[in-house]
């Protein structure tokens, strides 16, 4: 394993009472990369991440996270990772008390005040857990995950329940952390999130990786046939082609310039994704 590798997974398997949740997954995630595990509920995303976080034991395969096996990694290893969990906050402790306490667990923490500001809870230091709104609790979860200045950050379905504004702010925060060099592994079933944040995406279905790559190229998206459609005199026509430019040039010749109602489309990430997870069912 090279020092540029943050996570290396080979043949990971895990089953619950005879049901295979993770069925032979391989992953290589580089340092500084933002990597998304995308898939429907029950695809094995959370199980995979919890094995990498050291919360769950695996049935088979090898796993190295920051060079160590999470199944028996110690406190020094935990000091280098950050885990964002969506939890009920401590009802009686304030935002400031929680973030400062967690900072105290780590050897090189960020400044608690700066973290509170960074996640958008500025001015709410004295607010107790049971007085926070749902969105504010999620921000506190993020604060507790990043206050230890992790090299590798795990985010499991981080924006579930966010409104669009909060989600956009959260994406900016993740981009900021990534720009500082933090390696980020996130799971999501929300496509635009993977597209907006991730350098690379692995699509999981039924415990297996069914596609892997940059969001733009996922599932051969850029190389797949394009659709050219236009208003022909006899009605709307659509042509599936590997050479859309040539088709458009020919059409332009026929129409003597503008082509009425011209549209050139490639499958959206969503089309590709649905095909990928659907094909597996």
């Amino acid at each position, binding site marked *: 394993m090279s*020092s540029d590798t943050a996570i290396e997974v080979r043949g990971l398997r895990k089953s619950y009472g005879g049901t295979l949740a993770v069925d032979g997954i391989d992953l290589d995630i580089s340092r500084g990369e933002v990597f998304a595990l995308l898939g429907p509920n029950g695809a094995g995303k959370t199980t995979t991440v919890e094995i990498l976080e050291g919360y769950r034991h695996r049935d088979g395969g090898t796993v190295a996270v920051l060079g160590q096996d999470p199944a028996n990694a110690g*406190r020094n290893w935990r000091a280098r990772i950050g885990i964002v969990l969506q939890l009920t906050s401590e009802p009686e402790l304030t935002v400031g008390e929680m973030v400062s306490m967690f900072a105290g667990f780590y050897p090189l923490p960020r400044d608690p005040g700066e973290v509170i500001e960074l996640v958008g809870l500025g001015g709410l230091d004295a607010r107790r857990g049971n007085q926070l709104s749902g969105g504010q609790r999620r921000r506190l979860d993020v604060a507790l995950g990043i206050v230890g200045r992790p090299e590798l950050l795990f985010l499991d379905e981080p924006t579930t329940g966010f409104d669009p504004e909060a989600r956009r702010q959260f994406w900016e925060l993740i981009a900021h952390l990534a720009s500082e060099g933090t390696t980020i592994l996130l799971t999501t079933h929300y496509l635009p999130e993977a597209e907006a944040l991730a350098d690379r995406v692995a699509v999981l279905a039924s415990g297996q990786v069914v596609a892997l790559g940059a969001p733009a190229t996922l599932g051969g998206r850029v190389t797949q046939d394009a659709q050219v459609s236009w208003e022909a005199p006899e009605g709307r026509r659509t042509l599936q082609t590997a050479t859309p430019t040539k088709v458009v040039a020919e059409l332009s010749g026929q129409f003597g310039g503008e082509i009425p109602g011209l549209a050139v489309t490639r499958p959206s990430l969503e089309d590709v994704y649905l095909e990928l997870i659907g094909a597996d069912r």
Partner: protein
Amino acid sequence: MTATSVSRSGTSPADAVLPRLPGIWRTGLVRGRLEVRAFFRERQSVVFVFALPAILLVLLGSIYGHDTAVRGVTVGQLFTAGMIAGGIGATSFQNLGLTIAAERERGTLKRLRGTPLAPSAYFVGKVILVFVCTIAEVIVLVAVGMVFYHLHLPTSVARWWTLAWVFILGTIACSLVGIAISSLPSSATNSFPVITLPFLVLQFISGVYVPFNNVPPWLQHIAAVFPLKWMSQGLRSVFLPAQAAALQPGHAWQHGQTALVLAVWIAGGLVLCLMTFRWRPRGDG
């Protein structure tokens, strides 16, 4: 910042210079301070765990308190000694059982498990919580007894010594059993039948709510298996005049037996904790 870059650019984590983790005592102390703060902020724990024994002592005492139990000893004094044992059980056994079950259900324990916090530092925090609450509880109950029922502070070194060891052994035994039992409720809402109810029953048969000599013998035998009966007996020997020994089974304070039973519960409780403690709720991985 420089140390971070050292650990990041190291060729492997093994030869990277890892910064030192914060010490167990320091983090334990920080956690303990916040645990105590959270305890006294929460109305439920303050009323139903901390204040309840004092409220019951005033209530029961005002009904039966001025009856004579034995020459020179009032029922109120009996109640006070017993209620101190009940109070120790409340702020150790009941408090830990309920709060840890709730922490497990909320995911607090899972979150802490994902940080470099040493598990021992978590328990240092709990020890601080229990001792601060329990000492405060004993002070409040002794004060109520002195104001309402002519309870006297121990006058001899021997009695203070008895108070010290009964308090310490009793608190440790109850705490360990409380930590162990916190794993039993499948959710925090199930805590009542698993933690609160047995503790309530035990208080009735161990000489806390009812003078022990009024408890039917078969129930006395059951109570004798558990620490609470021995704690309340030990505390009566601290706060009551010598002639109150006549009310005890065997007409003696049985200090040796008390220490032995508490020690056995500490050993058993520790083994139970080590075997059963879970960071996550049951059925979750």
